[in-house]
């Protein structure tokens, strides 16, 4: 029996222990795995709500005069459309793209992958989740209060977001709830990020040096640093916004503002100050959404190419470089705000410089695939899909990084297409790849491969059908945020394209039902999975499926090698788990004996 399978036997036999009783075990749990799953299912609920909102928007763009039974008045007003935009963006960015890749999968897997028994601060971890859930509930409440949801976009630009009821429906109670929800979310994310960083620094198993960390851990670690620094700033900005709204201060409210015929009393502040503070958070937030996906994709590409990650060190440093540069480029969201052209040039140069570490990652992914014995399992398909979307969306980003080009395209669908592909869809593909990949570990069962492949192809093609034409609409001058462009002569010609995109959106959304069916069916009926079904190398595959409360069943792994030792010459198996010690053998390769 190999030492690896012996180790696995020891672990799967281990009693699960931990707290008993449904509430302590599954609701108010301090177990990082339970908390990770709580985040995962919260994100599933959020992504469902966010998708329905986007479908309503797509429907309205094509059939603006349609009677909708659930809309007060029957026909959607422009303000209601703006409320959909705001809530779609907010829910997706915070409760899906932040919650799923980092909080859900990071929580579940980071302690396992570094060989720890839990996060550094388990109770703080539980508090993070419950704050995030509370933030979600408060955000949802904005739909049902008088005036409805806010209309100022997920970026909540001042002065619109600071004015209150007079600025329009949803700007009263709805916008206040939005601000409170974001403040609560900030606290949850800050506590979570402290936990992630401290765990990575102090809780690693013996032998788990920084250069032996799986790239997923590198990504979650750097993402947590970004969260800590960025959400602290958003928290400060949120407090100033709330004070402007409820206490009559004038941090963001400009002087002499007349709204609906009424001169506003508080004034003299700077609306641009909000933009600066918001985007100082907002740009790192883009990387908070995408970096974990990059880690997951590196991990999966190596696994299913049966090759080490090409240029591991370069990959780790590229994650750090992207994280660092991410703090220096917030101004590129503000090219049209009237900033000094020299500032614009500086932000532009810094922005295109992110292309360097991004290209390092992309070429290293290709280098990892090159010459590999590629296995096209569902997680692998989604990982390759991630690379495709990252390249497509990244390239349009280089155009938008030019102030002159951005000035023309900023308010058009080109920007919508760009950020949906690179931040939205790429990150979602990272989440889906992670779901298919770690499902056997999380639930001890396998998802259905055929359904996974159907899901992939429908989604992959569907997403390109939605967002590729959107670039052309943008270049031609199609303006975003318009609820109804049928009355505008030069925009009317895009309606057939819009109809195509809307149909593609509905088909793509329907394809997600395949995923949901597969997920929930496999939870109860999926084929039982082996401890290490993908023949992977990192420590989570050494633990039982699902792992017991203390992860390794009272044993503590030691680490002897890097995270991606696939197809090592001379070894008898094509993968060497990190906890397999080298055999000092005078007669030949040090790797030969232990795997046998």
């Amino acid at each position, binding site marked *: 029996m190999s030492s690896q399978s012996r180790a696995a036997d020891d672990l799967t036999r281990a009693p699960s222990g931990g707290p008993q009783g449904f509430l302590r075990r599954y609701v108010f749990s301090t177990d990082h795995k339970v908390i990770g799953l709580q985040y995962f299912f919260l994100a599933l609920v959020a992504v469902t709500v966010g998708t329905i909102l986007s479908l309503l928007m797509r429907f309205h763009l094509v059939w603006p005069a349609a009677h909708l039974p659930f809309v007060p008045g029957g026909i959607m007003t422009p303000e209601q459309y703006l409320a959909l935009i705001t809530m779609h963006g907010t829910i997706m960015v915070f409760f899906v793209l932040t919650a799923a890749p980092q909080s859900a999968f990071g929580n579940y897997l980071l302690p396992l992958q570094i060989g720890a*028994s839990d996060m*550094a601060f388990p109770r703080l971890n539980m508090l993070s989740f419950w704050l995030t859930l509370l933030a979600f509930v408060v955000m949802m409440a904005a739909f049902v209060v008088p005036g409805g949801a806010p209309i100022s976009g997920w970026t909540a630009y001042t002065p619109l977001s600071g004015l209150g009821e007079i600025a329009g429906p949803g700007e009263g109670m709805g916008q206040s709830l939005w601000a409170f929800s974001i403040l609560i979310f900030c606290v949850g994310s800050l506590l979570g990020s*402290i936990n992630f960083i*401290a765990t990575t620094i102090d809780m690693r198993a013996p032998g*788990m040096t920084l250069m032996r960390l799986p790239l997923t851990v590198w990504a979650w670690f750097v993402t947590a640093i970004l969260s800590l*620094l960025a959400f*602290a700033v958003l928290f400060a900005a949120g407090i*100033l916004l709330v*004070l402007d709204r409820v206490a009559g201060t*004038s941090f963001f409210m400009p002087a002499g503002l007349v709204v609906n015929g009424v001169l506003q009393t508080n004034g003299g502040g700077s609306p641009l100050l909000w933009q600066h503070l918001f985007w100082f958070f907002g740009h790192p937030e883009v990387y908070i959404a995408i970096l974990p996906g990059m880690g997951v994709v590196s991990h999966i590409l190596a696994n299913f190419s049966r090759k080490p990650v090409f240029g591991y060190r370069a990959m780790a440093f590229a994650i750090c470089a992207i994280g660092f540069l991410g703090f220096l480029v917030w101004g590129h969201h503000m090219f049209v705000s009237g900033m000094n052209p020299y500032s614009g040039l500086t932000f532009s140069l810094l922005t295109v410089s992110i292309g360097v570490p991004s290209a390092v990652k992309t070429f290293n992914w290709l280098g990892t695939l090159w010459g590999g014995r590629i296995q096209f399992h569902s997680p692998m398909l989604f990982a390759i899909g991630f690379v495709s979307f990252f390249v497509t969306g990244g390239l349009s980003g280089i155009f938008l990084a030019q102030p002159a080009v951005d000035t023309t395209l900023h308010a058009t669908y080109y920007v919508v297409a760009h950020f949906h592909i690179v931040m939205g869809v790429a990150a979602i593909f990272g989440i889906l790849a992670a779901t298919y990949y770690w499902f056997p570990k999380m639930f001890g069962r396998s998802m259905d491969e055929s359904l996974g492949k159907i899901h992939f192809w429908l989604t992959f093609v569907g997403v390109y059908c939605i967002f590729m034409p959107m670039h052309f609409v943008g270049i031609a001058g199609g303006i975003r945020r318009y609820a109804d462009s049928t009355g505008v002569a030069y925009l009317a010609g895009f309606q057939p394209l819009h109809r195509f995109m809307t149909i593609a959106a509905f088909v793509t959304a329907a394809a997600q039902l395949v995923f949901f069916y597969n997920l929930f069916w496999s939870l109860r009926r999926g084929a039982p999975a082996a401890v290490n079904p993908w023949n992977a190398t990192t420590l989570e595959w050494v633990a039982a499926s699902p792992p017991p409360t203390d992860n390794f069943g009272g044993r503590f792994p030691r680490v002897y090698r890097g995270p991606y030792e696939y197809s090592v010459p001379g070894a008898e198996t094509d993968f060497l788990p990190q906890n397999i010690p080298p055999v000092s053998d005078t007669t030949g390769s040090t790797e030969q004996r232990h795997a046998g």
Partner: protein
Amino acid sequence: MPVDTVAELLQRGGGGHSGNGAPFGSGREGNDNPGTPQRVYVTGMILALGGILMFFMALISAWVVRRGFPNGDWQPIELPRILWLNTLILAASSFTLARSRRCLVAGRDADHRHWWGVTAALGAFFLVGQILAWRQMLATGLFLATNPASSFFYLFTAAHGLHVLGGMAALLVVGLRSTRRLTLETATRVAALYWHFLGGLWLLIFAILVVER
């Protein structure tokens, strides 16, 4: 953060293992016990201070922008004189806290408890002093929304005061020996890190308020 702490952060963790050729450690002993190490609480506090610093830096940058905004609505405010006394009290509390920690290390437990209590008392005096400063400001008709300078005055002092309130709670919890997971040495170290940070932060904020005049 002290330089040696940074170096420590980078080196610790997985570096050394005894290399006895086992895929797992031998159990609950020595280096193999993965139970939460005490240093993690220090790391967590340093990280929390990083987040708090970013929060205040965001507020301070807002102050810089708002003050430089050329529309003439910034009216300098007269700072209550008691703020100088409060500053002295808070600075003194850092020294008493350091002394308390030295006594602990030297094994003089009674002295340690004495100076710990003095620190908590000074912290309480500081908070009372800040409230008095607020009352003086309110008495002169300067409210939160009166003008941007007064807005920032209340904002800075309230944000800092709430953090000091948290620090008082930490001093009390440690003073009453109610920390279950932390050793006394770690608990006092973590509390001291936080308290000294708040002292330094107040000096920065106070300097800003003084410059503003």
